């Protein structure tokens, strides 16, 4: 049962040959495979299969290529099968690419066609020969070709019956490296980037044209786009591995177009949404937030939240005690997926397949609209065996891959058919925007004020201790004394009366950085001494360290201490923090071995929290 998907290729090939339904779980396993040989083999076997016998949805696909279709056809057939579709192909003559596009009565444009897959390679856009000393002629040629391509596709969809899928095209190395001058090479590359931009623009201009960004997908998969031997010998510009990438894009598009996309993401909790088992380590002990591996789980939660923002329904499927989970999801400071974000939830000790079925009923959806993600091979196997129509994604292995594994299959793709939807601006990274934002300000102070930095300083809670210890262990630059208090020492100090451990989190208008700083302070009757203060360099230059010391000064004042004492031990890497005390008005009063001692009289000292920062105290 557990190994139901291991022999997926054997199972699928046998079923295709016997004319019996293909196993859903085997198809999901196929969708996650990168083995071109498997795709080719299954694609060949499925050529004579029927939709009725295989249980797949019949799909009509026109293929028009500027190159030899050859291996694309079996690979595409298997890829579409992985998405639940069995295509019948109408293939145009590759030697007559433009002629075919302009012939309105060609069978490729029949109304029954689900999509016309229009696939090109660089040869279509490049002259047979070109001069390296006249790149203007080359760029003019490329520009003219892409305009003609755009015109042809626009005509096809304007005739009204056809939906077209096309893609961006990689610039071959022979062109790029064939230019010896850096300036000419940049110019040609820019022209090529504009070519791809112009192809992508088709998708914004015509609701019946979809464009896959093949170039980005190739770069991300790091597969070779071209095998020179195959190109020269057989006019095959793309390797099998590259065709797999292209076929996956086609599958995602057709799944979305034919209503086979999934709507619900059902997530396990332990070792999927955070590291560790809640029942064993407690809410404060799970890995979430901070540095790796906690950061990987945070990023995963962020991605899930982003899917939810786009309409994906979330369901929680966890084997745990319900109360325990409810309080951890509500109270853990780093959790992003709070209980109310899940539209359905099943936290109990029953088999997960039954829980998924019950949640499907609750949502009035069929299990075949579910994607289920779990780190346990056992749970995945159980769900697969009982509900083969659920798409199952593995969440085990290195948590850094969680996001990729979730998103790579494109299970939730939808088509946005209105022009308004199409023009929705893309999401951009907060950091990049932060950079642009800074350009419009006269001074750093103005910028900081507009940034609306909120610093939250609080005494460490048991939830924070692991992250604080992690900061101590990993921070080298903004680390005043190099004393790396571990989790046990930090816990002891945070619980004792004569010490205070503080944690510091930062957010600004662009997002939440989470916990970025900590300090360990000994409270003597007359003086508070900062044993160490560490801060992530990510937030340097925003006055965060100053706010932390400002908070300490306020607390020291309140407790009646006369002196706030700071220490600094120079190391090879912490020069960035060497001036902290003197900049804040502390006086260098002496040294203990290599450690400098700086003091500030609490009484009469001006408040240190910068104006640009809103300090929140918990």
């Amino acid at each position: 049962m557990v190994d139901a998907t291991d022999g997926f290729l054997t199972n699928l090939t046998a079923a295709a040959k016997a004319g019996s339904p293909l196993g859903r779980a085997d198809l999901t396993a196929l969708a996650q495979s990168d083995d071109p040989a498997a795709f080719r083999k299954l694609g060949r076997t499925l050529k004579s299969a029927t939709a009725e016998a295989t249980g797949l949805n019949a799909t009509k696909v026109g293929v028009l290529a500027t190159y030899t279709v050859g291996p694309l056809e079996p690979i595409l057939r298997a890829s579409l099968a992985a998405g639940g579709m069995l295509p019948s192909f109408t293939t145009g003559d590759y030697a007559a690419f433009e002629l075919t596009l302009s012939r309105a009565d060609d069978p490729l444009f029949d109304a029954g066609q689900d999509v016309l897959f229009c696939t090109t390679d660089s040869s279509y856009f490049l002259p047979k020969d070109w001069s390296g000393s006249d790149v203007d002629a080359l760029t003019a040629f490329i520009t003219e070709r892409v305009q003609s391509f755009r015109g042809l596709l626009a005509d096809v969809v304007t005739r009204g019956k056809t939906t077209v899928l096309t893609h961006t095209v990689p610039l071959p190395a022979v062109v790029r490296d064939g230019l010896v001058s850096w300036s000419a090479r940049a110019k040609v590359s820019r022209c090529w980037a504009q070519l791809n931009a112009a192809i992508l623009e088709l998708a914004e201009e015509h609701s019946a044209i979809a464009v896959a960004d093949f170039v980005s997908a190739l770069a991300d998969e790091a597969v070779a786009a071209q095998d020179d031997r195959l190109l020269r010998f057989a006019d095959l510009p793309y390797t099998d591995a590259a065709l797999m990438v292209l076929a996956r894009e086609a599958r995602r598009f057709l799944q979305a177009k034919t209503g086979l996309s999934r709507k619900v993401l059902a997530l396990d909790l332990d070792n999927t949404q955070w590291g560790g088992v809640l029942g064993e380590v407690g809410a404060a002990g799970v890995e979430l937030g901070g540095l790796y591996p906690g950061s990987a789980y945070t990023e995963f939660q962020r991605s899930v939240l982003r899917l939810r923002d786009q309409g994906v329904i979330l369901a929680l499927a966890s084997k745990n005690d319900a109360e325990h989970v409810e309080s951890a999801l509500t109270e853990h400071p780093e959790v992003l997926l709070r209980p109310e974000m899940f539209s359905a939830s099943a936290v109990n000790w029953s088999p997960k397949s039954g829980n998924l079925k019950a949640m499907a009923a609750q949502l009035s959806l069929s299990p075949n609209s579910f994607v289920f993600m779990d780190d346990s091979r056992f749970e995945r196997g159980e769900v697969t065996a009982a509900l083969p129509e659920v798409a199952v994604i593995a969440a085990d292995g290195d948590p850094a891959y969680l996001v990729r594994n979730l998103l790579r299959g494109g299970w939730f793709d939808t088509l946005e058919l209105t022009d308004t939807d199409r023009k929705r601006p893309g999401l951009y990274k907060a950091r990049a925007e932060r950079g642009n934002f800074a350009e419009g300000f006269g001074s750093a102070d103005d910028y900081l004020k507009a940034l609306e930095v909120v610093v939250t300083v609080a005494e460490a809670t048991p939830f924070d201790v692991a992250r604080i210890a992690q900061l101590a262990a990993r921070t080298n630059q903004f680390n005043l004394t190099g004393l790396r208090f571990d989790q046990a020492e930090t816990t002891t100090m945070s619980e004792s009366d004569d010490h205070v451990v503080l944690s510091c989190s930062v957010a600004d208008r662009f997002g939440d950085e989470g916990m970025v700083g900590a300090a360990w302070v000994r409270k003597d009757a007359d003086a508070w001494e900062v044993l160490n203060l560490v801060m992530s360099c990510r937030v340097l230059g925003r006055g965060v360290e100053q706010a932390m010391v400002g908070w300490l000064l306020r607390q020291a004042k309140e407790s009646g201490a006369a002196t706030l004492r700071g220490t600094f031990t120079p190391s090879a890497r912490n020069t960035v923090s060497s001036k902290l005390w003197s900049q804040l008005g502390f006086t260098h009063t002496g040294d203990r071995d290599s450690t400098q001692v700086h003091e500030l009289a609490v009484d009469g000292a001006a408040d240190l929290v910068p104006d640009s920062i809103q300090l929140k105290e918990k």
Partner: protein
Amino acid sequence: MADTQSVTDGVLDILEDVLEIPRADLEAHPTLRDHENWDSMGALEILSQVEGRFGVQLDLREFNAAKTVDELASAVSAGIK
């Protein structure tokens, strides 16, 4: 050092799979182009599978010159060295 027999076996596996010809037929009639299922696209698929399985990169001229199962296997063995 590649074991000749295991290379021949591996090549036969791939041929059997891609050309959909039983192994016994291939052994009885080792000249590749005599088989009806042999064509240039199939040949290129065999090339890519052979290269993937044995981790070699062949000169296409040598690959195309191999007329029989054994010649193909020795082209692969040469590549392994």
